[in-house]
């Protein structure tokens, strides 16, 4: 018990810095949880409990070297035309962890997520300032090809969106557009197995993907995303269109695959963030009353346990305890 208290104190300090001045403080906060991923997220992540806390304390003194930053986001601003959708977001995403982005509607979570694979490039008038470094490389460098980025950073969308093609062709789509012609059968089987869908569909790979249930379709979309063997999976409220049983399956799946991938997930469901994620970033919206627009800001990014038990910012506490607004 003392361990936990001590840990949260340390983290609260780090978190407060993030909330106030952003900058490199998020990295310190992350460094505090220096546990190897497997330990940091035990089988039931809802109760990460003492051992992680103890490790977190140990790491606070000296960040462990094996905790690798995938996305280093600094002073990120996103504009749609004149409208600023997101202001000065700074936080880090680490490898083989699940980072959850939570917050009320219109707070820019999805906008931030879509910056990581340059999906916002597809929107007319979208503009990004600040830096996002992906393994130390500037994602928005003019020499970087957004298509190559998306091959490494896959995306799963809110609504299951399989192509109107067969199950097989859905999964083989990514490898095919990347030019792969041989070994597709193995890729399809491997991806569907990883997405825990193989046994359900192996006898009807040629059938339309639209014949699957919503939960199966979403797992198909996950299989499709991992078929190109990405480094990171971005998930935009992947369970919001699903029932609780399908949701549980997707959450189990995320725990399975995070050993190989880094996951960033946007969710409206706070219980989900608490259950599955290692780190949580809480966003909120500044409301500009003069023109009735909202700009998203990051309040704090910290260990999920800290965010939900002892957040450093009052706004976070109000939100996670349901007293928001």
């Amino acid at each position: 018990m003392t361990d936990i208290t001590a840990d949260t104190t340390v983290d609260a300090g780090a978190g407060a810095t993030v909330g106030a001045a952003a900058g490199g403080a998020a990295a310190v906060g992350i460094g505090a949880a220096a546990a190897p991923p497997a330990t940091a997220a035990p089988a039931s992540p809802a109760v990460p409990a003492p051992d992680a806390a103890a490790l977190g304390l140990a790491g606070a003194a000296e960040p462990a070297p094996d905790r690798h930053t995938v996305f280093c986001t600094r002073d990120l601003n996103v504009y749609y035309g004149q409208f600023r959708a997101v202001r000065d977001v700074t936080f880090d995403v680490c490898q083989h962890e699940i980072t959850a982005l939570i917050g009320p509607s219109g707070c820019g979570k999805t906008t931030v997520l879509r910056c990581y694979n340059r999906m916002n490039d597809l929107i007319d008038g979208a503009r990004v300032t600040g830096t996002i470094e992906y393994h130390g490389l500037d994602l928005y460098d003019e020499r970087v090809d957004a298509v190559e980025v998306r091959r490494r950073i896959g995306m799963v969308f809110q609504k299951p969106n399989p192509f109107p093609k067969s199950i097989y062709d859905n999964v083989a789509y990514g490898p095919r557009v990347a030019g792969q012609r041989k070994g597709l059968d193995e890729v399809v089987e491997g991806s569907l197995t990883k997405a825990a869908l193989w046994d359900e569909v192996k006898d009807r790979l040629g059938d339309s993907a639209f014949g699957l249930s919503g939960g199966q379709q979403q797992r198909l979309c996950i299989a499709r995303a991992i078929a190109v063997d990405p480094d990171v999976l971005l998930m935009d409220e992947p369970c919001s269109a699903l029932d609780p049983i399908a949701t549980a399956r997707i959450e189990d799946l995320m725990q399975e695959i995070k050993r190989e991938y880094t996951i960033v997930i946007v969710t409206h469901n706070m219980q989900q963030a608490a259950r599955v994620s290692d780190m949580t970033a809480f966003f909120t919206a500044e409301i500009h009353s003069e023109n009735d627009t909202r700009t998203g800001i990051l309040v704090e990014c910290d260990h999920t346990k800290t965010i939900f038990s002892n957040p450093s910012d009052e706004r976070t506490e109000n939100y996670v305890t349901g007293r928001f607004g």
Partner: protein
Amino acid sequence: MTDASLIGAVPPTLETLRISKGRRRREVLVRWTLLLAALVSVVVSALILWSLFREAWTFITGVVWAETWGQSGWFPRRGIYDIPTIVVPTVIVTAIAMVVAGPIGLGAAVYLSEYARAGVRAWVKPVLEILAGIPSVVLGFFALTWIAPNLVGRIGKPALLTVGLGVLGLYAAVAGFFAWSRLKRYRDGSSDSSALIGVVGAAALLAAMGVGYLFWLLSLLGDFAPARAGSLAAAGIGVGLLTIPLVASVSEDAMAAVPEHLREASAGLGARRMATATKVVVPAAISGIVAAFIVATSRAIGETMVVFMAGGAADAARFTDSPFEGGLTMTAAMASLASGTDSVVGEGLTFQSLYFVGLLLFVITLALNVVAARFVDRVREQY
């Protein structure tokens, strides 16, 4: 009198609910007027079809086929009605028109729906639709005075060689893919041997058509002498220009209707815009795109003014299968018969040949629609 605020408080009597006689009469009148409007269009269509069939039948039974058979020309005044003489130019003009309008129209549609920014689309699409409103007389004149001497006369031969071989290659690729996928399905054991016979037959037919086409192409290159005035090629290009907006506009509508989330899914998997367009958007919009091609083809077959002016023949023509000579399409033949120097209105069999040609046009367009509907059923990806 009943106070409005008290309705509901007072229990209704028959007197308060009764419909007035005038009201009832008006309802009936409205109903019958609208029915009449609906019936007029149906009855007119039916009457047109019936007269078409009747007069065409008179022609078919009345014409001396023995005289017409083996002749190579369309000379209605002399009682010579060689059908291939007017069908082949129609096919040539339509084919050239679609070779022009298909790629350009589809390319414009893909650009507008997949590449263009909203601002560009907002002014390009209306301009495209204005183009569709250009009177065909104007295009006919343009085809005769500019396309024929400058385009067909100067670069006709190399253009024919390139486009002709391109079409042949495309044809071979499509036919080959079709045969190969059928054969693969047969080898997988998912269709039986009786289906294989059909496939082999179809493949043989397709191959024969391809070889025939190649020979035709070679024969054209052998004796290339472009007509100085109008020619089927000039008319075909003119008709093609006329149908570009149609192909582009209808295809673009179909592609724009494909949900955005499918494009995002494709982009998220590392597909470039062109891959998304060809592998996701076009397959999902295929029924609309095929519809665009069918409408455009029907329009090209039925187009009269451009071919009449720039086709290089009127009233009568010898048989030709060269796009560089003047020829008489079915529509041009009809227009010639019905008007101008060779007016034959009410003049017996010659007049009835008009109906026969009309019936032929109708049957061709109908067949085209049926074939296209079956094709769409087969390849459509429903979203």
